[in-house]
C-alpha cells in the first residue's frame, strides 16, 4: 500500500492537555522522583551490607573461612563458628515450609474452589487475622502451651514409635527443633494461604469452565486448570513464606531451646542465626564477639539473597515454557 501523501493525511488535533511544556515537565519530575527512590533503595541495601561487612572485619580476620564450617561457638575462649546457626536456620525454615505448603494450598483451594462464598469469606478473614498476630504472641503460646504439650505427649510418642530413626532420638525437652518447626509452620501458613488465595481468585473462570465442560470433576478441574495456571503465583507465595520463616526471630528464639548444637534429632534443642543475634548482641563479651554476631547477620543477609535468587530462577524456569502471550 503506498503511503498517503501529506495532503491526504488526516489532521490530528492534540487535546489541550497534551501541552508539550507541561507534559515534559511533569514526566521529567515523575521520572526523576521514581529513579531517585529506586536508587535509594539499592543504596540503603548496599550501605547496610558494606557497614555490616566493616563491622564484622575483626571476626573475618580472626576466623577467616573457618567461620562458616566451624561448629564451636565460644565467646569466652574467642572461637566463633557459625555452622550450628546456619544449620538451625535452614532446617527449621525448610521443614516448616515443607509442612506449611501443602496445608496452605489446600486451605486456599478450599476457600476459593470448594466452600460457598460465605464460609470461604469467613475462613479467608480468619486466615488474614492469623497473619496479623505479632510473632511474640505465637512465641509465648509456643513456649507456655505448645512446648510442654510436646514434651508430655508428642515427643515421647515419636520417640517410642520412631525412635530408631535418628530424627526422633533422644530425650524430650519440649523446647526443640520440632517446636520451632511447628511454630514457624503455624506462622507461615496464613501468609502462604492468603497470597495463594489471591492467586487463585485471579484465575479467569474461563479456565475452570474449559475443564468442567470437558467433563472434569471439581478435583480434576483443580488439577487440570487451576493449579497449573496459578503455579508461578503459588511458588511466589511459598517463597514469601520461606523469607518469613528464615527471618523470624522472636517466636523461634522462645521455643527452639537456643543450644548451638548440630543434631539430626528434631527432639533436640537448636539455635538459629536471628536468635543468636537477638540473644547475645546486647551483652557481647568482647569486640570480637560483637563482630562475630555481625558476621552472622551478614551471612543471614547472604543466605536470604541466595534463597531469593534461587527462587527467582525457579520461577523463571516455571514460567518460561508458557512463553507466548500468556
Amino acid at each position: 500500500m503506498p503511503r498517503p501523501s501529506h495532503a491526504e493525511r488526516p489532521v490530528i488535533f492534540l487535546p489541550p492537555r497534551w501541552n508539550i511544556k507541561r507534559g515534559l515537565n511533569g514526566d521529567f519530575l515523575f521520572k526523576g522522583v521514581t529513579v531517585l527512590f529506586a536508587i535509594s533503595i539499592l543504596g540503603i541495601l548496599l550501605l547496610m551490607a558494606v557497614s555490616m561487612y566493616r563491622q564484622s572485619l575483626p571476626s573475618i580476620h580472626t576466623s577467616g573461612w573457618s567461620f562458616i564450617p566451624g561448629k564451636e561457638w565460644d565467646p569466652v575462649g574467642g572461637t566463633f563458628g557459625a555452622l550450628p546457626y546456619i544449620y538451625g536456620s535452614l532446617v527449621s525454615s525448610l521443614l516448616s515450609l515443607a509442612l506449611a505448603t501443602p496445608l496452605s494450598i489446600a486451605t486456599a483451594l478450599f476457600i476459593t474452589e470448594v466452600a460457598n462464598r460465605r464460609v470461604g469469606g469467613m475462613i479467608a478473614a480468619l486466615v488474614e487475622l492469623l497473619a496479623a498476630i505479632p510473632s511474640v504472641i505465637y512465641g509465648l503460646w509456643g513456649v507456655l502451651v505448645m512446648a510442654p504439650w510436646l514434651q508430655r505427649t508428642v515427643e515421647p510418642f515419636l520417640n517410642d514409635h520412631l525412635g530408631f530413626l535418628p530424627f526422633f532420638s533422644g530425650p524430650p525437652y519440649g523446647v526443640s527443633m520440632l517446636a520451632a518447626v511447628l511454630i514457624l509452620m503455624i506462622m507461615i501458613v496464613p501468609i502462604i494461604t492468603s497470597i495463594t488465595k489471591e492467586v487463585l481468585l485471579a484465575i479467569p473462570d474461563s479456565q475452570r469452565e474449559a475443564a468442567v465442560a470437558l467433563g472434569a470433576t471439581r478435583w480434576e478441574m483443580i488439577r487440570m486448570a487451576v493449579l497449573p495456571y496459578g503455579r508461578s503465583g503459588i511458588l511466589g507465595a511459598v517463597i514469601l513464606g520461606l523469607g518469613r520463616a528464615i527471618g523470624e526471630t522472636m517466636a523461634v528464639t522462645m521455643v527452639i531451646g537456643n543450644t548451638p548444637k548440630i543434631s539430626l534429632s528434631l527432639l533436640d534443642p537448636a539455635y538459629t542465626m536471628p536468635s543468636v543475634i537477638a540473644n547475645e548482641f546486647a551483652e557481647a563479651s568482647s569486640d570480637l564477639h560483637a563482630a562475630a554476631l555481625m558476621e552472622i547477620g551478614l551471612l543471614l543477609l547472604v543466605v536470604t539473597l541466595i534463597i531469593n535468587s534461587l527462587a527467582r530462577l525457579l520461577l523463571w524456569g516455571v514460567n518460561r515454557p508458557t512463553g507466548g502471550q500468556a
Partner: protein
Amino acid sequence: MSEATTDAKIRLDRLNVHFGANHAVKEVTMAMASNSVTAIIGPSGCGKSTVLRSINRMHDLTPGARVNGSVLLDGEDIYRKECDPVTMRRRVGMVFQKPNPFPAMSIYDNVIAGYRLNGRGRRSEMDALVEQCLQRVSLWDEVKERLHVNAMQLSGGQQQRLCIARTIAVMPEVILMDEPCSALDPISTLKVEELIDELKEKYTIVIVTHNMQQAARVSDTTAFFYLGELIEMGDTKKIFTNPEKRQTEDYITGRFG
C-alpha cells in the same frame, strides 16, 4: 417443525433461569433435532448464553443462578436428581467465546486433556486421536511439526480451533458454541464455519452468534430471543426471508439490537 419432532436430540421445556432477582430466561420451550445446527440470535443481554449454558449445566458453577424447568437430552432430563453432570458434560461439549486453551499445556496435551480424564490410553491410541482431531479442525498441517510446544504460541484463530479439537476429542454428541468466532479474523471464521458444516454429520450443534450472515450460512434452524423470551424459531431460510414476528424482522433487518 420445532414442537412436534420426536427425534429431538435436545428439548428445553419451560426453561427458566434466574440470577438472584434477575429473571434472565423466561419459559423457553424449544427442540433441536439430531445432526442439525441451531443458531440462537438476539440482541445483547437477551439470554442467549444463559440458555446455551443451561444445556450442559454450566450454571452449576455460578453461585446465585437458579434453573427451573427441564432440559431433555435424548428424552432424559439432565436436571433430574440421578443425573451426574460430569458424565453428562462428556456428552455435551462446549466451545467458548474467547479461546481458552490451557496455557500450561502443550498443543498435544490440550487436545488430549479431556480424553485423559477417562484414564490413560495407550500412547499410540492417543497419538492417533490427536492427529484425527487436529485434522478435523484443519489445524494438523499447521501444527504437526510442533505438537509439544506451548499452546499459547498459536494465533487466536488457531487457539479456537484447538479448543474445538479438544472438545471433539472426548467424542460428545452435542457441541454448544457461544459466539465461537467473535474473537477471530474473517479467514479463521470461515474455517470454523466450514468445520461446523462438517461436524454436523456427527454432532448436534447449537451456536450462539451475533453475526446474522453466519447464522444464515451455518444453521438449519434459527431461534430469535428477545428479553429472555424465545420470540420465534424455525427454518433458517424462513426466519431470514419471511419471519412471522415483527420483532424478528426488525432485528434481522438491523432496525434494532
